[in-house]
């Protein structure tokens, strides 16, 4: 924890130097390539665009329609082929398969900052992958731990719970599953964990899978949806089965739909990440790097806002709900 504080402090100091030197760095152009179209990345885009505006530079954004390396890679190639980008802020859709294409981007002169998901093992200092400037994202393992403890409390410390997740081999959701399973195994031996099932980022499939598990385990006590689509899909299944309020759902990612479900008593805990921070800081890092700063931390863990029905109305907390103006 202390180490984290230290890193954030260093980051803050490094960033403090940025506004002075931004103009000196000259106009840089940044590319933004998130994972897929969803509220989480839309809020991240808000952060990216806000930082771009504040620092006076241009961002080229392309959002893949579906999640997958075969969709993200051609778009990546085209963005690099433009030849006018200096930095690329991206959420790699597979921590191993995207190493090649992103390394090729670096070879073409485009430096890479990963947000939300990382390459390799996320340790860009001593790990297998070291070429990205930094990884800015949630400590997903910790997020998984928090979710586990929250769900355990909500169901009274015993019972059967189920994990519904999105894609295998994606660092973010993997970390969440890992942290969740870890805490359940160590701290709540009376809780049995089912899953994870992968819905491949399809909300309908998430609902179907959850419904099936509900059928099979009529005494299911809780569900952990590891991201936007998983949580919404699982929540829908619970409502459709008429079990809203009896089966506790913990949702990772604070979409408006998840908050609505919390209002209806279906979801008991929502973990809001801070995608706005990720996007904003990524742009700042790019500018800092362009200005010659070399002490940027290689890993920044943005925090969480833990939302439950008691604090959801508190504006300090509610501002972390993923809202895009106009939607």
């Amino acid at each position, binding site marked *: 924890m202390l180490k984290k504080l230290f890193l954030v402090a260093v980051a803050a100091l490094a960033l403090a130097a940025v506004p002075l030197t931004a103009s000196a760095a000259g106009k840089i152009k940044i590319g933004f390539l998130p994972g897929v179209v969803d509220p989480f990345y839309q809020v991240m885009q808000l952060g990216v665009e806000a930082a771009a505006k504040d620092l006076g530079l241009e961002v080229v954004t392309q959002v893949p329609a579906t999640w997958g390396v075969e969709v993200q890679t051609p778009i990546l190639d*085209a963005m690099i082929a433009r030849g006018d980008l200096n930095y690329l802020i991206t959420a790699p859709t597979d921590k191993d398969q995207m190493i090649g294409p992103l390394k*090729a981007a670096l070879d073409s002169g485009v430096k890479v900052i990963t947000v939300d998901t990382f390459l390799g093992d996320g340790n860009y200092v001593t790990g297998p992958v070291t070429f990205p400037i930094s990884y800015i994202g949630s400590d997903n393992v910790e997020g998984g731990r928090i979710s586990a403890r929250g769900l355990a409390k909500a169901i009274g410390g015993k019972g059967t719970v189920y994990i519904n997740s999105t894609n295998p081999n994606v660092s973010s959701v993997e970390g969440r599953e890992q942290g969740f399973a870890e805490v359940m195994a160590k701290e709540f031996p009376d809780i049995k964990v089912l899953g994870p099932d992968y819905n491949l980022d399809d909300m309908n499939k998430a609902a179907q899978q959850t419904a099936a598990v509900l059928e099979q385990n009529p005494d299911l006590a809780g569900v952990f949806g590891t991201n936007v689509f998983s949580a919404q899909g699982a929540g829908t299944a619970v409502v459709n089965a008429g079990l809203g309020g009896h089966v506790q759902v913990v949702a990772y990612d604070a979409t408006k739909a998840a908050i609505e479900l919390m209002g209806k008593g279906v979801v008991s805990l929502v973990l809001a990440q801070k995608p706005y921070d990720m996007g904003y800081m990524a742009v700042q890092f790019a500018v800092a790097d362009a200005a010659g700063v070399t002490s940027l931390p290689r890993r920044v863990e943005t925090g969480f806002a833990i939302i439950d029905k008691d604090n959801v109305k508190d504006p300090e907390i509610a501002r972390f709900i993923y809202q895009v103006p106009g939607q």
Partner: protein
Amino acid sequence: MAGPETKAVAELATASSASLPTSRQFILVLSRLWAWAFLGLMIVFFVIAVPVWNDGSVNFLTLRNSQNILVAITPVLLLGLGQTFVIIGAGIDLSVGWVMSLASVLSALAIRSAFNAGLPLFPSVIVGFAAAVLGAGLVGLINGAIIAKLKVPAFIVTLGTSFIVRGVALLMSENTTVIGLPADIRDYGSESLFYFIRGEGGGLYFLAPPELTGEMLRRMDRILAYPVIVTAIVVAIAIFILRKTQFGRHTYAIGGNLEAALRTGIPVDRHIIKLYVLSSVTAGIAGFLSTLRFTAGSAVIGDPLLLSSIAAVIIGGVSLFGGAGTVMGTVIGALIIAVLTTGLVMLNVQSFWQFIVVGAVVILAVLIDQSRGLLVGRRARSRHAT
């Protein structure tokens, strides 16, 4: 052979109406070439619009970009090539996307096992290729056998096998990406025949670039990546088979009039099986190349590509009723889709607009195909697929 009956047949022939007037023939020729024209117009549009939109900092038809486009069309084109044969034969193969995924997983597992067992890199890659092609070919065999012998419509059969294949792929990959492959296989998946270094100290290199770092590395363009060469070879073979061999002609005949093919003694059942093996094998090659490129096997990689491959085939002028179409048409169709995606990215337009445009072009292609049929008074054909 000559004789008095010949005169009767001759009179028979000339008694009926003459063939089409030249204006109609002109329109017919035009309808076959429209896809080429469309592609050309699109390229011209992007060449002009991209620099204008980006204040001169970005160009469309750069060496790197054109090579990117060639690499981008590889999976869709390979799937589309097999599909071309099947659709000309009045069938359809909805399983190619998942067969590609299965092949990707099989080749990854094979390469990993072979390499870990001590086999050197290149033979391991060959083992992976064999695994991909054999696995895919097996699926094609099953598809073709059920369609030909049990007379179940192709639409249904290939839809059914696509689910089975998907399950097998996910099972074998244990629901995750198959990793742990030797990183050097990426060389086969993305290295190229030539390397060109722009500017100072530059030049053209064959097969292996000099060790470069930093600034010079940035100025290096890859020309003719290995996947592109493999695809080009497959395209050439496909053109040869379709145009020059009995197999190709029989494919057209079966698609044009199944009854005629049966009655004139063409071994239709065997031929249909071969068509589906062909489309599965090309999907297998696509899966293998994808494993090399991403150094991993993925059970979900082919899923979004099925519809794109069919779109490419239709835009290229292959009639869904069978009996008509060319390989070059499918190549043009795949190029149209890839040029569109790349151009849109360079214009900062969200790339999902490509779906809308591609959809419109597909409908346009079908309309043109229909009206061409009306012009020549196309007669009803028998089909063996929905």
